């Protein structure tokens, strides 16, 4: 079966690549071996986690960083396309390339962010908090959100916080399985007329405040429920991320996949790429678990398989390898150098990933594969957590590689 481009991996990077190519009329296939890291989404994309202008910090990065391969000018150009890209899927984002704002974490901290979903709490300047007095709400029995953390964090910024828990008869039935009282299960209940009841309960407790902050437990399958709830509550309502699974992350995954399929893309979920056939300096075809001998051929291939968590790279006692094609991986020699004993220090293994040339083409045994690129978390040279650049690297390298392929 023949395609223009095949992307291995169907998370944020894979879908941004696939959508960008399918928009230009390419026949695309995405193979995804299970759901993606978007299920852990915070509601904000980070470009670089410094205060002020992220491009200033990016300009100073080492040459091996994926951002350095793109260059500041390219980053600026690509980054300005991102809002439009997502708004086409009804995912409105707010924020700017040249000035970070702050998101409110589930622990009540403020962290720099680039683009934040419209319905989320957002702080432009911690010295001038947008509210003086708020109420932090939770759903009775929901264990993945802690109002006291949020309240004490915000109190340090000078915000007066009260807390309250809402209970609804409709939610009592899912409390039968208290361990499964997760954001997504709650969001399945908080739809249609239940939103009316929820708004009524919220209005009853949120009286003498400027704003309401609550966990993202609304809007799993579409954004409509969020809009309805916002209309029905009498005070401005802002969401704060919960612990996973992430309701808006799953909605984002669904919307991206839908868009890709509407553009004619084929998305195969729950299938694993087992091997590929390399002839000369090109990858010719791949084979998957579900399709046995059938070869999926393409002009271009994109590796968007994620890092350790998604098995895009795998660590054995003595080496770190790329499991599908045995591509070259950048990692420090001895295992003792892979990590720092101080958990909170930057961990070297976080920078491990697939080696690429300046155009993000992968290598095997030192030789560049001319028609295969890597994007997102599988790339080497950056520490997504410490630097706060995971989403930025994913989205921008994907947009860039899509442009390279279309050249």
């Amino acid at each position, binding site marked *: 079966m023949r395609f223009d481009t095949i992307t291995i991996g169907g998370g944020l990077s894979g879908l941004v690549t696939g959508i960008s190519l399918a928009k230009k009329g390419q026949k695309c296939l995405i193979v995804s071996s299970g759901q993606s890291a978007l*299920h852990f989404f915070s509601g904000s994309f980070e470009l670089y986690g410094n205060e002020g202008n992220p491009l200033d910090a990016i300009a100073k990065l080492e040459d091996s960083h994926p951002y350095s391969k793109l260059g500041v000018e390219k980053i600026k150009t690509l980054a300005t396309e991102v809002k439009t890209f997502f708004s086409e899927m009804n995912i409105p984002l707010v924020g700017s390339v040249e000035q970070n704002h702050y998101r409110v974490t589930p622990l009540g901290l403020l962290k720099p962010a680039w683009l934040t979903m419209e319905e989320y709490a957002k702080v432009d300047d911690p010295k001038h908090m947008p509210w003086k007095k708020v109420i932090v709400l939770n759903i009775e029995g929901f264990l993945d959100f802690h109002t006291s953390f949020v309240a004490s964090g915000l109190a340090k910024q000078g915000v007066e916080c009260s807390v309250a828990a809402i209970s609804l008869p409709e939610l009592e039935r899912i409390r039968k399985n208290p361990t499964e009282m997760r954001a997504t299960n709650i969001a399945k209940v908080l739809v249609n007329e239940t939103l009316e009841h929820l708004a009524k309960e919220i209005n009853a407790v949120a009286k003498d405040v400027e704003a309401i902050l609550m966990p993202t437990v609304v809007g799993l399958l579409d954004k409509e429920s969020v809009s309805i709830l916002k209309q029905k509550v009498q005070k401005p309502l802002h969401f704060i991320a919960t612990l996973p699974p992430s309701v808006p992350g799953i909605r984002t995954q669904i919307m991206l996949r839908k868009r890709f399929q509407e553009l004619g893309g084929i998305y195969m979920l729950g299938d694993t790429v087992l091997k590929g056939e390399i002839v000369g300096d090109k990858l010719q075809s791949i084979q998957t678990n579900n399709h046995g001998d059938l070869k999926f051929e393409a002009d271009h291939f994109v590796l968007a398989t994620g890092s350790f968590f998604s098995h895009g790279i795998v660590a054995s006692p003595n080496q770190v390898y790329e499991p599908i094609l045995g591509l070259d991986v950048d990692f420090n020699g001895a295992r003792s150098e892979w990590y720092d004993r101080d958990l909170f220090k930057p961990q070297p293994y976080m920078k491990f990933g697939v080696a690429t040339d300046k155009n993000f083409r992968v290598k095997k045994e030192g030789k560049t594969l001319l028609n295969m690129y890597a994007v997102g978390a599988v790339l080497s040279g950056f520490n997504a957590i410490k630097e706060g650049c995971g989403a930025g690297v994913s989205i921008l390298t994907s947009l860039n590689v899509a442009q390279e392929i279309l050249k």
Partner: protein
Amino acid sequence: MEQNKDDKSFEQCIKCTVCTVYCPVTAVNPEYPGPKQAGPDGERYRLKNPYFYDDSLDFCLNCKRCEVACPSNVKIGDIIQSARLKYSKKKPKLRDYMLANTDIMGSLATTFAPLVNASLKLSPVKSLMDQVLSIDHRRTFPAYSGQKFETWFKKNAVGKQNNFNKYVSYFHGCYANYNYPKLGKDFVKILNAIGYGVRLLEKEKCCGVALIANGMAAQAKEQAEINMASARKAVQSGTPVLTTSSTCTFTMRDEYPHLLQVDNTDVRDNIMLATKFIFELVDSGKVKLSFKKEYQKRIAYHTPCHMEKLGWAIYSTSLLQMIPGIDFIMLDSQCCGIAGTYGFKKENYPYSQKIGEPLFKQIQGLNVDLVATDCETCKWQIEMSTGVTVENPISILADALDVEETERLNK
């Protein structure tokens, strides 16, 4: 790679809860704890003491959408079904025997088809079945055919099959045999047109999916052994075993080794849906299809859960899209709610309909001539719940096929 009863894949579970997000049952039935809890979490306790087995696992549809979603490759659905077979103390009821033994019931029903079909439509009969057997009175039963596919094949088709130099074997399944022989006839029509003779298996039993679902593992295993012995003979004689039902296919390929410990490694790759077989021939240029110009239809494809798990929808949809006169729509991949015998049971009926609701709404909003799907129970559910006619892709291909031209192209 294949799982057996000692598989420890539950240890790969990182408790991310992604499976529960995509479980069609948890969304509608709070009595069901969801795949994470019922599967890998519960398994840790059950291994310590079977006392921790929970009858709410019976609410699992066995749709395997949890496994498709899992980022850590945990065989969640298999863990749940294995636990039901291993620990459940419930004895199958008369109703369960009747629903599970699709071939015995089918044999009886085809003999008296007009009578059976007529009485299954009567409300006193439905009401009696509801009260005595707990088979929900709102459920529409599939009609039985007066003549079995096997009977038709032996009378009308077997002779012509010798005029070919390439052959396939056909596992027709209970549905084509007892309810809808036209599907089997359509299969023969297409395969003959592209130059393949059709053989039946030496001995075919129901694949056993309904037996597994109703806790009758021993009988399922017996039938699995018979089917695999027949498949083995067919494969050894050089013919692949083709099917027209995604669930029979999935059961024979994956549930046999995973749940019944019936080894099929030597034949598994040769058991496949006819659409996969035909697509690969067309894709590699070995076969050409020609379609009637006058065939014009707006068709939406529904991906059955087991088709989603197999990952094979692409074969059926690619073939359908080769028909020039088809206006094709891909429906969102979601469970229709029936899950074989599950939706027939009184205790499951309301959940079954609620699970299917988003799918029914989507179909009703599209104004299509037909829905295409590879599963017979999805067909019953969608026809009953939307009023739209549902056909197997093989039947649609057969109707649209220009037989003479296709025969000529593949001479």
